[in-house]
């Protein structure tokens, strides 16, 4: 299944780099892109000026002011640190990738002669020859030859893969190594635009743009910031009216506590981490928008083979006819299959062993002649001790029986028809003129897939199985796998039409594909995941590439997309809910002198007005760091209906967001009072 490459969160080297980066991000020209944190930085700079003025004037109480200023700067720094840490993880990966980029020479084929040139100078449509042991110099398509290729630099998978000219396995990636043989490759990318280049840029986050939902959320946060700015600015006139004009330090502290700094500080880290989580699952998203769309998907188009079923059909039962026992049929079938190395053949041997304890016999000693399967005969079998056993497609074997002077019993026809109607494949077994029975071959649905589809259905996602099978077969497998719908005898055009139809109804569609004829559908789908083993055309048409080439991963991609949105939503709720406690800490502290009765609002019983304000500011800064792991990992996602999910998240992050800071601020107050900071 998926190979997840987890990294540790608080690596010392990563932290060092991140801290430097966080300080660099204090540049106001960068900060202004994040309105919430820009307000905090402005407040921090403003209070710093006030602090310098007060310190120079020798005023009392500078210690408190100094602490406020430091914590305000810390708030900004923590937010930057979160972003830097999220980026840092990508950067480390990009560096590893960069090392695999080759400075080697390539053998360019010009007029039949090999001409050594630097790999970096290769352009589209150049033709190169790569031999065993050499790195493939650039992305390309094999036009001649077959080779085993080590793609671990890209996929992390150490087992070599076979690449050959023609068909859907012809694409090779620059930076991978040819292990055996020799291939001729037509280059398909210009320098700087290879897959490796794009991958490096993506994991580094260099091309990161804000996604639509992120923009909308930013607007909400900016709006809230304006509301709180107004509430705090107009508080001063009311304070003056109450004859309790407030020091500017306190007003800035209140403002910073109220505006949604928690989500404002973590927002971009959440987005970067979402992309990063995909990369850990070995999926490259070519845009953040695609990740978000994955969370919104209504319909999943899943290829039957490889996604829903195991690649091959397997023998499920023996049905004997003509008075023969099943055991005899199994014996004949096993004999006929012993030399058959196809997965179907092997499954017959295994089934016979499982059902009747027949061991695979050593037949080399006997005078056995194997008859391999050909497209003409559509049969295979064995000639042994004068026996002649054949198994194969129903029509072909029946013709064989008749040709040997036998008759086909009606019972056999019935069985064949029944199996076909049920979506299975009947393999008829015969010995010369006598039909022995039928082997029932079945598609085997992957374990646990049914439950996953049920979970998807609960989340409101419809699954559609796409297969080239006839409608009967497709319906049977669809039923067994528990998909919502299926598209039988599907052509690439049918697929494209289905996607268009869904989209016209306002739905978002995700699919996987690898062949060149999948490219139009991949391009049309809202989330098109191309398999890394697929053709160049498919990889360019999709907006994600799965390096493991595992079509089932579409399900994980959807979950990661949802998790990304949920993390933003829950932290927004948490951030805003926190304000209630902060009000109860700061407002009584501000007006205790003018109206001692307001001490009744000091429900946390914070020690002094100064400790109350300081505790709120410290909590506000520290909570960002505390939530960094959550922001980077994402909130836990359990497939369930939207209503249930909302109930859970409102309880945890809404109610929790109201309660947690009361405890947190109180604890900080006790701590700083104990060590005499306030």
């Amino acid at each position, binding site marked *: 299944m998926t190979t997840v490459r987890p990294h540790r969160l608080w690596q010392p080297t990563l932290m060092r780099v991140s801290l430097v980066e966080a300080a660099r991000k204090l540049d106001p020209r960068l900060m202004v892109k994040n309105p919430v944190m820009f307000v905090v930085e402005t407040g921090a700079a403003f209070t710093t000026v006030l602090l310098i003025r007060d310190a120079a004037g020798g005023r009392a109480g500078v210690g408190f002011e100094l602490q406020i200023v430091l914590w305000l700067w810390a708030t900004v720094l923590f937010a930057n640190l979160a972003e830097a840490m999220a980026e840092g993880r990508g950067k480390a990966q990009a560096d590893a990738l960069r090392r695999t980029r080759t400075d080697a020479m390539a053998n360019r084929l010009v007029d039949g002669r090999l001409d050594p040139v630097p790999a970096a100078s290769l352009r589209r449509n150049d033709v190169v020859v790569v031999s065993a042991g050499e790195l493939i110099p650039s992305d390309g398509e094999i036009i001649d030859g077959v080779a085993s290729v080590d793609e671990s630099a890209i996929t992390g998978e150490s087992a070599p893969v076979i690449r050959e000219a023609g068909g859907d396995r012809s694409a090779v990636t620059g930076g991978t190594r040819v292990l055996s043989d020799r291939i001729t490759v037509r280059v398909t990318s210009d320098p700087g635009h290879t897959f490796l280049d794009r991958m490096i840029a993506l994991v580094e986050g260099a091309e990161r743009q804000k996604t639509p*939902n992120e923009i909308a959320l930013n607007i909400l946060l900016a709006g809230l910031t304006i509301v709180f700015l107004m509430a*705090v600015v107009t508080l001063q*006139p009311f304070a003056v009216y*109450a004859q309790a004009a407030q020091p500017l330090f306190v007003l800035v502290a209140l403002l910073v506590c109220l505006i949604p700094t928690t989500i404002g500080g973590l927002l971009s880290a959440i987005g970067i981490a979402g992309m990063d989580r995909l990369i850990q699952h070995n999926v490259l998203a070519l845009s953040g928008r695609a990740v978000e769309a994955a969370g919104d998907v209504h319909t999943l188009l899943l290829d039957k083979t490889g996604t829903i079923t195991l690649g091959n059909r397997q023998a499920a039962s023996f049905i004997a006819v003509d008075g023969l026992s099943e055991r005899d049929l199994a014996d004949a079938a096993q004999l006929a299959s012993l030399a058959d190395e196809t997965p179907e053949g092997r499954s017959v041997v295994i089934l016979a062993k499982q059902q009747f304890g027949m061991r695979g016999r050593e037949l080399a000693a006997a005078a056995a002649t194997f008859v391999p399967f050909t497209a003409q005969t559509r049969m295979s079998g064995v000639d042994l001790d004068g026996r002649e056993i054949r198994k194969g497609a129903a029509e072909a074997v029946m013709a064989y029986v008749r040709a040997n002077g036998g008759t086909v019993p009606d019972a056999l026809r019935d069985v064949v028809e029944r199996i076909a109607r049920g979506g299975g494949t009947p393999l008829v077994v015969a010995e010369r003129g006598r039909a022995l029975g039928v082997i029932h071959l079945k598609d085997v649905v992957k374990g646990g897939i049914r439950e996953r589809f049920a979970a998807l259905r609960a989340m409101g996602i*419809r699954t559609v199985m796409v297969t080239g099978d006839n409608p009967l077969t497709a319906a049977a497998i669809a039923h067994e796998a528990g998909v919502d719908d299926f598209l039988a005898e599907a052509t690439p055009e049918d697929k494209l039409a289905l996607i268009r139809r869904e989209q016209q109804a306002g739905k978002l569609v995700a699919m996987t594909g690898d062949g060149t004829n999948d490219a139009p559908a991949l391009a049309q789908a809202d989330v098109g995941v191309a398999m890394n083993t697929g053709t160049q055309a498919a990889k360019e048409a999709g907006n994600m590439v799965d390096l493991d080439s595992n079509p089932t991963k579409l399900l994980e991609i959807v979950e990661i997309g949802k*998790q990304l949105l949920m993390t933003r939503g829950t932290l927004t709720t948490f951030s805003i809910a926190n304000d209630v406690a902060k*009000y109860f800490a700061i*407002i009584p502290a501000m*007006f205790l002198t003018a109206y001692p009765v307001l001490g009744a609002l000091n429900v946390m019983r914070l020690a002094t007005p100064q400790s109350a304000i300081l505790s709120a500011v410290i909590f506000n800064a520290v909570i960002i760091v505390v939530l960094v792991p959550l922001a980077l990992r994402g909130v836990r996602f359990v497939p369930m209906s939207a209503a249930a999910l909302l109930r859970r998240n409102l309880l945890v992050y809404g109610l929790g967001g109201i309660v947690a800071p009361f405890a947190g601020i109180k604890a900080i107050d006790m701590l700083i009072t104990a060590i005499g900071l306030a």
Partner: protein
Amino acid sequence: MTANGWLQILLFLAAVAAVTEPLGAFMARVFARERTWLDPVLRPIERAIYRLTAVDETREMRGIEYGMAMLAFSLVSMLVLYALLRVQAFLPLNPQGLAAVAPDLAFNTAASFTTNTNWQAYVGESTMSYLTQMAGLAYHNFVSAAVGMALAIAFIRGIANERREGLGNFWVDLTRGTLWVLLPFCFVGAMVLVSQGVVQNLRPYDRAQLVDPQGAVTEQVIAQGPVASQEAIKMLGTNGGGFFNANSAHPFENPTATTNALELLAIFAIPAGLTATLGRMTRSRRHGWAIWAAMAALFLVGVTVCYWAEARGNPLFAGTDQTAGAMCPGGNMEGKEARFGIAGSALFATVTTDASCGAVNAMHDSFTPLGGLVPLVNMMLGEVIFGGVGAGLYGMLIFVVLAVFIAGLMVGRTPEYLGKKIEAFDVQMAMLAILVFPLVTLLFTGISAISPSFGTSSLSNPGPHGLSQLLYAFTSGTANNGSAFAGLSANTPWYNATIGVSMLIGRFLTIVPMLALAGNLAGKTRVPPSPGSFPVTTPLFAMLLVGVIVIVGVLTFFPVISLGPIVEHLLLQAGTTF
């Protein structure tokens, strides 16, 4: 608190629930231009109006055009009222010979009635001629309510329409809302009010000899006028501008417990009905009821606190018996009418500020600090607890868009409202619409609070109570409620100008982004609902909506209310008054 008091409150809510569905269904038919039983009478009138004004009733308007038509109509109506106020002395139906209204007061009043606020910086019986009351103020009572309804319907169309940019035709909605909804109900309502003793005449004021002369004062002037006709629309249109200064506390406006109950019901009737109209037009009746439930929950919390605070009485009278009994209403009766009692007054104060009505049957200034906090907070929440006619619903729907946005993110999906995606532009418009109100309110209150010469000089009480008076005035104006905390002498150039501007901004600068949002939603494709989309028909949704409204309102205003009513309450418990 008494069982009788609670019975009144719960019966009232039951009555509101009972009228919601029939009225909502009726309005849905009216605005969809379907046949109703009133058609034989009203349809010819409607057609005549369109012929006269050259309106093509089948023409659809996009958001911008709809908004421009509404603004033009409101501007002209406002100018006409201003002119009428300035020249009323020269016009007929002025038996008392009342003078022209001063320019600043005329501006304030014209803005007030155009925006459905009905803030009154004047004393009705000594300022407005009968002609002004009928042709100026009552006219606005009708059309400002009809405009509100039209806008709400336009917004609903924006949500319900499928990829169609049009939001309906403003002129048609305005006309049909007036003819089919407001006029018939007001006609019947006025008749019922007259039967209960509300006056309806054009006579000069009566003079009555006092039975018990008070020194030199031997007679009392008893104001008259066409009150019943104006009273009906004042309540039904959530206008609230009283014919007399005492508003619904005056025996000629609200003579009996029966009229009190009917007037209360009239305030909530259309705003509640519109939730059902929303449910029908969006083909999700349960969504309409979910919104109704959110409103009802907020109403119940408010009325409970208000009733409790008033019934509890005044802690400074600790020695006196303040419990309700057969011979004593109990509680804090200062500024309340004996015929309505504590429950009837607390209920009225809550209802009139939940809806942006602003009629009063008791003096809010005399409520206990917490009792007076309820009307204030009701308005601060944005007048969405049933709210003004139309304005309450579209205000609420803006909160719905925000609630849905947050909910959508929390369930890991691009937010959608009834199948329409909520994107950056929609959030932007919703935030703009919500921002306007606190900005204007806090800004003007803040300036007034630190300006002794023109601001605090109008206050009748110092300290936190004075701040409450100021805050109440600007909150009431900007929220287009119009009720007054009294105690503030508002008829000064500063307050006339600033409250006038607040009312205009509070109304129209909210409407513009609202219509932009509606127009944008109208053009979007409707995504069919799935278990993955968050349902807007459940109690959970109603709770979330309440949460969003309360959080936005409370977070914005907590600092200032803690310096006003809250500190006043704490001081009162400690024995200090202002």
